[in-house]
């Protein structure tokens, strides 16, 4: 939806390894977000970006870093993955021009840390 792709869509990795998830948008929107979804918690904000090289922390940012060197790409990095980071990760963009100023979500990445 709204030209958002996430890669990879599924990943299994071992504890202690670095992992990078990529979010790519084709719409040139300023705001991008990373959320994680866990049972019983809904979606929680990890980090967000309001422009190239402009990022800020969300409510569950510990253990994660982000980078945005181009408008279209927002990367989420787990420097040393832990089992508690097993989750489904969603990227989102905010489209201020859409009717009602909507936030659109990517298809999600299921990450399993063993």
């Amino acid at each position, binding site marked *: *939806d709204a030209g958002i792709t996430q890669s990879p869509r599924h990943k299994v990795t071992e504890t202690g390894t670095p992992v990078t998830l990529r979010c790519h948008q084709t719409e040139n929107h300023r*705001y991008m*977000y990373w*959320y994680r979804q866990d049972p*019983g*918690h*809904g*979606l*929680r*904000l990890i980090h*967000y970006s*309001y422009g190239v090289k402009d990022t*800020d922390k*969300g409510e569950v940012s510990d253990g994660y870093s982000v980078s945005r060197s181009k408008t279209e790409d927002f990367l989420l990095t787990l420097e040393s993955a832990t089992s508690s980071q097993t989750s*489904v990760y*969603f990227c*989102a963009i*905010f489209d201020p021009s859409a009717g*009602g*100023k*909507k*936030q*659109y*979500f990517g*298809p*999600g990445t299921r990450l399993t840390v063993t």
Partner: protein
Amino acid sequence: AQTVTQSQPEMSVQEAETVTLSCTYDTSESDYYLFWYKQPPSRQMILVIRQEAYKQQNATENRFSVNFQKAAKSFSLKISDSQLGDAAMYFCAYRSGLGNEKLTFGTGTRLTIIP
């Protein structure tokens, strides 16, 4: 910080009947937006309906409508003429009107449609 509470982890409704999903929120802000998102088994997050806090009129989108009670900080979703395709997780979400556009979500309600 804002919080969003969905007190019904699961709901079920007979096909063609009406069901209401509850959501309450806590905020000290006067300018904000409220949303209902649907997440079917495909995992895709789909925006169902949106309400601006400054609007007194309840939002409506086809079979979906909301009951927005600002003083009570309540934002319920009513689904009329329930269909099998409505089966999904439903999330209530809050967004401040002050910028950065980030969403705060409730924990979700799983809706089952009984044929």
